[in-house]
C-alpha cells in the first residue's frame, strides 16, 4: 500500500499564503492573550489550591459553596467536572499555603455527614513556588531552543538551525495561541507538551533538512526553490505517515487517557499538526529566502 508515489507539489510557491495564515493565528492568539492579561495559567504558575472531590451522591452546589465560604474562602470557584457528583473547588492563593485543602475538606465532611466527599486530587502551590515555576518553564523552553540552535548549526548549517528554531518557536506560539483562544489552562503538563512538541517538530525538520543536504550534493545547478521542493516531495510520504501515527496515538491519549492528561494530549494534537506544517512552511522558506539573498549578493559582487 502506498499513499503517495512520486509527488511534484510546488510547496514553496504558496509560502506567502501559508505564512500569512501562521501570522494570523499567532496574531489572534497574542491579541487574545493581551486582552485576557496573559495566558490562562493554572495553579502551578499562579499559586492557589484546586481540590477535586468526589461525593457518593450528587451534592447541592449551593450547599458546597456555603460550606467552603464557612471555611473562610468566600471567593472560591466551585463547579462540577465530568460527573455531577465530582466537584472542583478552586481557591486563590492564600498566605497559609496548602493548609487550605485540609480546612476545606474538614468543613465539607462536617456539612455532608451522610455524603462525605473523597479527595480525588489536590494541587496546591504557594505564590512563591508559582512564580519560580513560571520562570523556570520559560527558561527551560528558551534553553532547549538554544541547545538545538547549537547542535543543528554544528551538524548542518547555521541558517538551517535558525530555520529550525524559528519553526519551533512558531509551533509553541501557535499552540499557546490555541490555548488562549479556546480559554484552556496552561499548567506544568502543558509546558511538558510544549517541549515534546519542540522535540517532535525538530525531528520532522531534521529529516527534511537532511534530505536537502543530501540533494545539494546529488543535484547540481538547481535553484534553491527546486532543491527544497524536491526534498520536501521526497520525504512527504514519510512526513505524512509519521505525523499520522503520532497523531493517532495522541488522539487515543486525548480520548482515552483520562482527565489528568487531557491538556497535554490537546497541546500535542495542535503541536503535531503545527510541527509538520512548520517544517515545510516556516523552516524551508526561511532557508530559501536566505539562500536567494546570498546568491544575489554573490552575483552582485562578481558583477
Amino acid at each position, binding site marked *: *500500500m*502506498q499513499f503517495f508515489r512520486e509527488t511534484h507539489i510546488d510547496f514553496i510557491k504558496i509560502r506567502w499564503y501559508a505564512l500569512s495564515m501562521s501570522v494570523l493565528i499567532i496574531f489572534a492568539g497574542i491579541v487574545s492573550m493581551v486582552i485576557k492579561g496573559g495566558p490562562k495559567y493554572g495553579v502551578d504558575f499562579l499559586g492557589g489550591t484546586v481540590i*477535586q472531590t*468526589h461525593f457518593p451522591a450528587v451534592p447541592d452546589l449551593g450547599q458546597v459553596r456555603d460550606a467552603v*465560604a*464557612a471555611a*473562610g474562602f468566600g471567593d472560591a470557584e466551585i463547579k462540577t467536572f465530568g460527573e455531577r457528583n465530582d466537584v472542583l473547588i478552586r481557591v486563590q492563593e*492564600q*498566605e497559609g499555603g*496548602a*493548609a487550605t*485543602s*485540609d480546612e476545606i475538606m474538614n468543613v465539607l465532611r462536617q456539612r455532608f455527614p451522610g455524603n462525605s466527599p*473523597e*479527595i*480525588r*486530587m*489536590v*494541587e*496546591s*502551590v*504557594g505564590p*512563591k513556588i508559582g512564580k*519560580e515555576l513560571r520562570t523556570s*518553564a520559560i*527558561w*527551560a523552553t528558551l534553553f532547549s531552543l538554544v*541547545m538545538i540552535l547549537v*547542535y*543543528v548549526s554544528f551538524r548542518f548549517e547555521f541558517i538551517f538551525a535558525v530555520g529550525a528554531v524559528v519553526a519551533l518557536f512558531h509551533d509553541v506560539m501557535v499552540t499557546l495561541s490555541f490555548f488562549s483562544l479556546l480559554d484552556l489552562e496552561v499548567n*506544568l*503538563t502543558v509546558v*511538558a507538551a510544549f*517541549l*515534546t512538541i519542540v*522535540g*517532535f517538530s*525538530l*525531528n520532522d525538520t*531534521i529529516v527534511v533538512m*537532511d*534530505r536537502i543536504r543530501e540533494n545539494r550534493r546529488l543535484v547540481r545547478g538547481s535553484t534553491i526553490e527546486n532543491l527544497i521542493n524536491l526534498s520536501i516531495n521526497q520525504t512527504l*510520504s*514519510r512526513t505524512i*505517515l*509519521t505525523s*499520522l*501515527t*503520532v497523531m*493517532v*496515538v*495522541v488522539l*487515543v*491519549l486525548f480520548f*482515552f*487517557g*483520562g482527565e*489528568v*492528561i487531557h491538556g497535554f*494530549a490537546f497541546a500535542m494534537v495542535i503541536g503535531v499538526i503545527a510541527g509538520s506544517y512548520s517544517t515545510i512552511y516556516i523552516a524551508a522558506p526561511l532557508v530559501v529566502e536566505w539562500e536567494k539573498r546570498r546568491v544575489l549578493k554573490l552575483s552582485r559582487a562578481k558583477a
Partner: protein
Amino acid sequence: MRRNNLLRTIFIVASLLWAGYELYPTLRVSQLKNQLSEKASKLAQAPGLQPEAVTDALGQGTLDGLVQQALAGRSPDSLQKAQQETKALIALYDQVARLEPEALRRGLDLQGGTYLVYEVNLVKMFGDLAKNKDQRFAELMAQVEKAAREPNADFFEVLQSAFDDTGIKLSRYWGSRIENDTKILEDMRKEAEDGVQRNLEILRNRIDQFGVSEPNIAAQGDRRIVVELAGIQSVERAKGIIGKTALLEFKLEKDPEVAQDVFAKINTWMKGTLKNIRPALANGDTTKADTSALRARQDTEVAVDDIFGTSVLVSDSGKAGNDSTVLVDKDVFREDPFYSLLAGSGRDVAVPVKNYRTVDRIINTPEVQEIVRNADAQFLWSKETFKRGDQEYYFLYLAKREPELTGEKISDARTEIGGGSSMTAAGQAVVSMRLNSEGAKIFADVTGKNVNKRMPIVLDNRVASAPNINERIPSGSAYIEGMGDINEANDLSIVLRAGALRAPMEVIEERTVGPSLGQDSITQGTQAALIGLGLVILFMAIYYKLSGLLADLALVVNLVLLMAIMAFFSATLTLPGIAGIILTMGMAVDANVLIFERIREELRTGKTVRAAIDTGYDRAFWTIFDANLTTILTAVVLYQFGTGPIRGFAVTLIAGIAVSMFTAIVMTHVVYDFVSTRRTLKTLSI
C-alpha cells in the same frame, strides 16, 4: 557481515532474556497485590472495618490489634477465623514488601499518594527566638516577611537591610549585646541550616513510625524539604504528623486572683476604647448587670465593629468576612464589654465559638499583650471545643509564661486505652508519656509544690489537656486526655516520640492524588496505551505488509526493553510516563518508516532487493540519528526543569528513543539479512 549478525542475534536474545528477568518481580508483585487487596476487603467486611483502615494498619503493623479491638465481644469462632485471615494477610504483605523494591515503581499519580514541599518559616522561627519583642519589632518583622515573600529573596539579606534602614542593631533582639550584626547573622544562618537538618531527621523518624513503605524525604535547596509518600490512604493524617511542630510544654495555670486582675484590666481598657456602641443597644431596656452567678445568659448579637470601635485593630484580612457579629450577654455588654464576650463556668473561662476570632484578636492587641506580660502570664486556647447545652465553646487559659517542662524530656509516649482510673476515662484513648529521669525529678518537684493547681499540657500553643494536680507525682508519667479517637492518639504518640521540629515549617506545594483517581489513571493509561499500540501495529501491517509486521515486532520488543530498563534503573512509572511511552511508540515507528520509504525509493530505481535494503538502512541511519538526538536533547532539558511526574515523562522519552534506535535499526536489519541470505529475494513485501 554474517558473523557480525550472529553476534547481534546473540545480543538481541540476551537482552530479551534480561528484560524478562527484570520484569518478573513487577508482574509478580501486581499479581500479589491484587490478592492482597481482595483479602483485605474480605477481612474488612466481617468486623465492619474500613478497607482503608485495614491497609493502613497493615503498613503500620497494628492490624492484629485493630482486628482484636473491632471483634471484641464477638464469638470466639469468628475471632479465631479473623485472626487466621489476619495472619495470612500479614504473610502476604511481607512477601509483597520483600519483592516490591525490585519491581517497577509506580508514581504517586498512579497509586495515590502525596508530594509535599515544606519550607522553613524563618520569619516565624527567628520571631519566636527573639527576645525583648516590642511594637517596633513586630512592624519590622512584618516588613521583612513581606519582602522575603518575593522569589529569590534571601531572608537574612532582607532582614539585614530592614534593620540597617532603621538603624536598629540586631543584637537588640538576638544574640548578645557585644556581638556585631555580621556575627549574629552568621549564627542565625547556621541555626537555620541546623534547623532544616534536624527537621529532616525528625521527619524521617516520624514517617518511619507512621509506616509508609519507601517514603522519599529529602532536602531541596537550603530551606526546603520534599516529602513523597506513595500509596498511603490517609493523606490528611500523614500531613498532620509531618507538619505538626509538636512542641510540648507543661505549664502552670495562674492563680485565680491574678487571672481576675488581668481580666479586669482588659475590661477597663476595652471600655475606654469602645466608642460607637449602637444607640439602640445602649438605650435598650437593659437593667444593670446582675453579677450574681445564677443567672441565665441573655445572648444577643452585636456587630464586631461595635466591639472594636472604629480602628482599634488591624483587621486580619481574608477570613474576617464570616464572623461579622459576635454573641454577647446583652445585660453585661454595656458595662463590661470584655466579660460579655466570655462565659464563665467554674474555674474555666469559656468562649462561645462564634466569639473565638474576636476574642483572639482582642488578646493579641499590643495593649492586652502588655497587660498579660506584666503579670508574667500568657493566654492559651484549648485545642478542642466543648459542648455545653446547645452552645460550643473554646476554653481560654491564663498560664505562666515560662514552661515548667518541655517535650525534650520525654523518653517515651504510647497510646493507651483508659481503664477508668482517676486519670483516665474508661474506654477513651489517651497518650501516656514517660519522662526521663531529669524530667521526672522536675515533674515531681513542680507537682509537689503546686498541689490543687492545674497544669495545662500545651501542644503547639494549644492546651491539649489541663489536669488538676491532686498530689505530688514522683513516677514521671503523665497523660494527655481528650483524644478524638485511637488514630489521633497514635499520631500524637508518634510525634511526641520523634520530638519537636526545630524550625517551624509550612507547606508551600502539595500534590495529592486520591487512591481512586490513581486507579482510574492507571486503568485509563493502560487502556490508552493498548489502543494506541493496537492502532499503530495495525496501520504498519496494512501499509508495509510483512515489513510492517517486522516493524511491529521491533515496536513490541522496544516496549518490553523500555520497561525493563526502567525497572533496572528503579525509575518510577508515572501517568505522564505512560504518555511518554505512548508517544515513543508513535515516534519509534518513525525510524522504520524512514528506512522503509528509503528502501522503496531504492527499489524504484531498479536496485536488487538486497542492495535496496542495505542502501536504505545506510542512507536512513544518519537522518534517524540526528533527528533522535535532538529529541533527546529537549528531553534532557525537560528532565532538568521538571519535577516528579514530568521527570518520569522525560526519562521514558529518553530511554524509549534510545531503545528504538536499537530495535528499529539493528534488530530489523538482522531479520532482513537473515531472510535475504537464506534465499534470493526477487520481491520484498514492503
